């Protein structure tokens, strides 16, 4: 099998760094859990 060519590692297309994107995803997770919790309480 032939050697595979190297792949480029570009910066993320938004928010400037991957660390910021990961933090944004974690904030999103917290918000979605909080939203679901409120939804559960509202319709309990």
């Amino acid at each position, binding site marked *: *099998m032939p050697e595979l060519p190297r*792949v480029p*590692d570009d910066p993320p297309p938004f928010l400037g760094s991957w660390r910021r994107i990961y933090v944004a995803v974690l904030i999103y*997770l917290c918000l979605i859990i909080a939203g679901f919790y409120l939804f559960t309480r509202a319709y*309990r």
Partner: protein
Amino acid sequence: MRTLDWFVLVTSLVSIIAYGLYRSRGSDTVDRYLLAGRSMPWYAMALSIMATQASAITFISTTGQSYVDGMRFVQFYFGLPIAMIIICATAVPIFRRANIYTAYEYLERRFDGKTRSLASLIFLCQRGLSAGLTIYAPALVLSVILGWPERATTFLMGVTVITYTVAGGIKAVTWSDVQQMCIIFLGLVVALITVIVLLPAQVSFGDAVYLAGAAGRLNVVTTHFDWNDRFNIWSGLFGGTLLFLSYFGCDQSQVQRYLTGRSITESRLGLLFNAVAKIPMQFFVLFIGAMVFVFYLFIQPPVLFHQAELARIQSHAEFEPVANQYSQAFERRRQATLALVEAHHSGDPGAEHRHAANYRAAQHEIDAARTQAARLVEQTGGEKDFSDTNYIFLSFVTRYLPAGIVGLVIAVIFAATMSASSGEINSLATVTVVDLYRRYVRRSASDHHYVLASRWATLFWGVYAVAFAGWGKHLGPLIVAVNVVGSLFYGSLLGCFVVAFGFRRVRGTAVFIGMLAGEAAIFAAFRFTAIHWLWYNPLGCATVVATALLVTWLTPGGGVPAEAATPGMRQPG
């Protein structure tokens, strides 16, 4: 199935094959056949990852699960974003810079050949067992719902998958997955709109949500911790994270998806799209199940949703009193539900509490009648631990949805089966050729030779999956056992990769012994304890890491960092 349904179903299947074959042009080198020439955009990878993960039984079961138990199953996915972040930060750059075809190929560079081979064999055992069931489970449900022979549904799904997967490799699989996910999204949206439209005129969408909540079907988050409860926020965040780390970090059927990206950035974006989109999607699927439950508050559902079993027990004398009790309880529940809506509209909390209590009493009687009917199934020679959860959604679809939409939903089930199955047989073929055939049989051959070998391996695993699915009905309770068997292997694989990424001083022999110890610990827990199988994963992972570190510490010179820890330093044969 009416003519329009057949038209929609056949058009969907033909377009999936045609589009997959069209997109697979040029898959004539091993790089293109197995990794799509590493040219895939992030959105194609993202949808392919989502499609491979979502098998048909996910849609069939998840809606049924919501009908029976509410929406708390969504918490199982809370660990997914955390796992995706960890994988994007660790596995993605390491795998991509290592220039590998399989995750296990990396293990030879990091450790040695025996560790790679052991991990490959564990993957083939685990994924090979589930390959047949991925086809068999929805084929069984469809055959019962549509009245088709099991072999017909199995054969139709199998031949479709094999055709485009053998012809086009990963490129065909990925682009077909994209199209299949579009069909799945469309089908789900249409199904939800239709179920809401079918509600009685006096019940608004707001009333339907209120009733679903009052019936305990909107219990999305449960904060109470219970070791025996699979679905709460804690098991989702902890157990779910570990499970998805194993799945997306160590399972070639997922790893191969993000190895096809044109850059590390594209691979990361594909995974992060899933981190963001998967939970709302599961919420949406579960919400459909909750709305189906509300629909059946006004229209009497069958005592059992498994039509064949229901028809069988109807001839027994014991069935009639059960059916009568069920009908009377349903009518009481319907009256209580209408009164509850009325009280909700008038804003009278006292009346709401009173009618809610009446509703619960009637629901309790309905549950009791269904339990008695299920017991009757078992007593009259039916399967043990009978459950009709998987038949609820499709039973609703075929009874109440209009012509065309039934065909679309059946197409969704076919599409989901094909996307999950094609990903499985493609990854099984890749590991067979790259990690075993090239490693032990033909170390250096032409590119064309390996493409041909990959096509044959894909054909082999496709035929194996169909054949195994054909024998599924003879397995009986083993089908449940096979799901448990899958969990017997993930922990060791995860532990191996945790050591590979996190402990540079550990060498091959130490992690190899660690994997054997991990498997021994899991099998001991399986054989001699009552620990739930969800905990085998952390147990196996922890045992591998602890044993590998202990062996390294006891071995003279074991504290020297491994040279091969730098990806790409040592090339396998």
